[in-house]
């Protein structure tokens, strides 16, 4: 006994117990109760088979299991779930994390090397986790004469803007965080934020290399936003709407890439420039200016900016699939939900269990999401490819391609769209509907 607890004193033990209880009470009352009240009173609860689920009835699901599925189904419809989990930031962060891992292995394979291998025993699967933990545990160093408030805010703003971009993207019919009528215009507005944040953070870090990187990023993003907008003008002309869901619905029978391949190419190139991917990765050109506008970020701030840039990559890839590859349209491949489980329930030996309201997510929604994810991952792989194949472009060639070549191609694409429209082939009242 003496080896384990050398000097056991009853008084000490009781004191620690009292201390524990005190802390639980304090935390519960200060944080727990307000949280419960907010959830119960401010979030409007759904109606379940006729009667409104009042806050007092909400806790009865423990007693009556048949209520659980309808409650979950109704939670799925609430805005909070949409923003936090499915079509919103959770889904995007998950795909972004997978993209980081795939990029490192994909690039390694193309360069005949191995890539992350030892984290997580199986081909470095947990490398991402270890990077995240490393960044969280690293100390955040702020340069002495840096403009502290802006320096702190820059990574948060960056991730916020990336999340804003993700919220506008419809993943499945009805499953979109903000179904805005002027969807495409909102996307352009959010894209306009990125250069401001880059310059803010590079100016706030008050050191030479980030400043040069920030100015270069400004040059690049400004000069590539114009072809970005012009290349999408063709689609708006033909579909006649800015709402992204309607754009996807307009591509039921044919995808816009078939009619506007030039628009797709111009959009893809400007997409690489917006994301600062390899052919256009001047802002963080290692060999000239150490890490560009990211130089002064360390620890979790650098982690946030990395997460933000890969969420941005997912958002742009999703935008490409929505606008040119017909979003979630695709043949029905998802197996229908077996009816007998709904009617008779699951029989296991003597017990048969019936679960009311079973099909949690209907078949069309799952099939739509599947097609959306397949196409987006395909576009992401194509975005990752240039990193292993091209060297970095020079600043004046970058601006030259941006202003002359891409804007020219974008106009050619608009003329094609106009020709199709006035020839009556496409567009409102056109031959192919």
């Amino acid at each position: 006994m003496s080896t384990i607890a050398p000097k056991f004193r009853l008084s000490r033990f009781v004191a620690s117990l009292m201390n524990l209880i005190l802390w639980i009470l304090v935390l519960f009352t200060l944080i727990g109760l307000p949280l419960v009240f907010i959830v119960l009173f401010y979030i409007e609860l759904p109606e379940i088979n006729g009667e409104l689920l009042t806050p007092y009835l909400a806790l009865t699901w423990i007693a009556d299991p048949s209520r659980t599925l309808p409650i979950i189904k109704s939670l799925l419809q609430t805005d909070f779930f949409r923003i936090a989990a499915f079509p919103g930031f959770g889904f995007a962060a998950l795909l972004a994390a997978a993209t980081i891992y795939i990029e490192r292995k994909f690039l390694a394979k193309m360069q005949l090397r191995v890539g992350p291998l030892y984290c997580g025993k199986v081909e470095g699967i947990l490398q991402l986790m270890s990077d995240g933990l490393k960044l969280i545990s690293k100390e955040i160093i702020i340069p002495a004469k840096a403009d502290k408030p802006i320096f702190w805010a820059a990574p948060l703003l960056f991730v916020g803007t990336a999340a804003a971009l993700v919220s506008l993207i419809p993943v499945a019919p009805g499953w979109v965080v903000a179904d805005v009528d002027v969807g495409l215009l909102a996307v352009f507005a959010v894209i306009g934020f990125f250069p401001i944040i880059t310059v803010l953070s590079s100016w706030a870090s008050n050191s030479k290399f980030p400043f040069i990187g920030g100015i270069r990023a400004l040059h690049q993003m400004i000069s590539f936003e114009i072809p970005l907008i012009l290349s999408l003008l063709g689609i708006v002309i033909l579909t006649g709407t800015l709402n992204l869901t309607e754009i996807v619905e307009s591509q039921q029978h044919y995808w816009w890439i078939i009619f506007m391949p030039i628009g797709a190419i111009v959009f893809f190139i400007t997409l690489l420039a917006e994301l600062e991917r390899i052919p256009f990765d001047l802002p963080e050109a290692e060999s000239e200016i150490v890490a560009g506008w990211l130089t002064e970020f360390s620890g979790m701030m650098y982690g946030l900016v990395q997460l933000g840039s890969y969420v941005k990559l997912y958002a742009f890839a999703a935008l490409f699939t929505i606008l040119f590859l017909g979003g979630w349209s695709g043949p029905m491949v998802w197996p229908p939900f077996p009816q007998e489980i709904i009617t008779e329930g699951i029989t296991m030996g003597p017990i048969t269990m019936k679960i009311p309201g079973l099909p949690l997510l209907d078949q069309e929604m799952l099939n739509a999401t599947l097609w959306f994810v397949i196409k987006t991952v395909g576009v992401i792989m194509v975005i990752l490819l240039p990193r292993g194949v091209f060297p970095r472009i020079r600043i004046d060639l970058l601006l030259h391609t941006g202003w002359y070549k891409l804007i020219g191609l974008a106009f050619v694409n608009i003329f094609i769209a106009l020709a199709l429209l006035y020839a009556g082939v496409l567009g409102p009242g056109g031959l192919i509907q």
Partner: protein
Amino acid sequence: MTTQLPPGMQLERVDERIMTLNVGPQHPGSGHMRLIIKVDGDYIVSCDPDPGYVHRGEEKMAEYRNYIQNIPHLERPVIHDSCNILYPYCLAVEELLGIEVPERAKYIRVIASELNRCVYTLYWLSIYGIFLGHSTMFMWPMGDRELLIDLLEALSGARVTHAYFVPGGVRNDTPSNFEERCLRQVNYFEKRLKEYEDIFYQNPVLKQRTEGTGILSRMDAIRLGTTGSVLRSAGVDFDIRKKEPYDVYENLDFQSQVLKEGDSYARSRVPYLDMLESCRIIKDALKKMPKSGSVRTKLKPNPKGGNDEAYRRVESGRGALGMYVVSDNKIEPYRVKISVGSFRNMICMPYLLKGEKLGNMPAVYWSLNYWPVEADR
């Protein structure tokens, strides 16, 4: 009042239009040497190379070692091209001591120095790739280099610092299955080299970055006394292996590679073509090598050089590498002067970088095949 400056320091009047950039000894865009660049906006006004950060006084130390102890010492300036820097030293000492090298040793020397030329050029090419931001072009040559380092390791026992050449031949014979293994790995290496064409040399983004930058005319190349790939990319057909063949190069069939444009694209392409040519030489030498015979003439202990001097040169990875050995009838050489390609090509930097854009600086600087450690000796 004028402050008394320490010797060698200069006070420089700061001009508001011209900004002085130190592409310094510790910059990802330059080796261990400093380029003091005066920049007006995006254009380079003047460039003053300032080497000497890795100067070790090789020539002074060489005067305190005898002819054999100098072997592991004189390969230090460029350890990953060690055969090609020991080759002229061995030739010069053999001329001084009047030694005849056996036939098989000559062929082994040619094979080892060609392998070593490819190993150096791959290292240079991969750094050229990463300077231009092309990460794949960094990884592929570094990987393929292992194929040849494996061969040189089988030959000399060490991966990089071989110390394999000795006045009188080579230090040991080839291991048992060396010819077959060398042929197999050089054939695969040649196949790998052809892959670089699509992803690096015909890559339009790379061509945009290197074509038309740092153009060296043929007359300037001769006047400035440049050598190696810098000279041959400006249209002057001068390859020591062809012009002044040493050992067995005259009965091996190969062509010296010459391009005419003289810009940094041509300067990056000539070493690549040299590598393809080296593979041809190695395969030809493997066929013509006598199957048996001694690989080294025995030296009498503590050889003395006699009051004579010898200047021999060899086509190394960076051009003509000359050794001027003066001996005064003692065990140690009286004076060893190493005249290396990098030092001779350094004079192009002020001429080529003047008027160039700052973005082109890495492309032009590294295309001059400049190895700082070797230039400082």
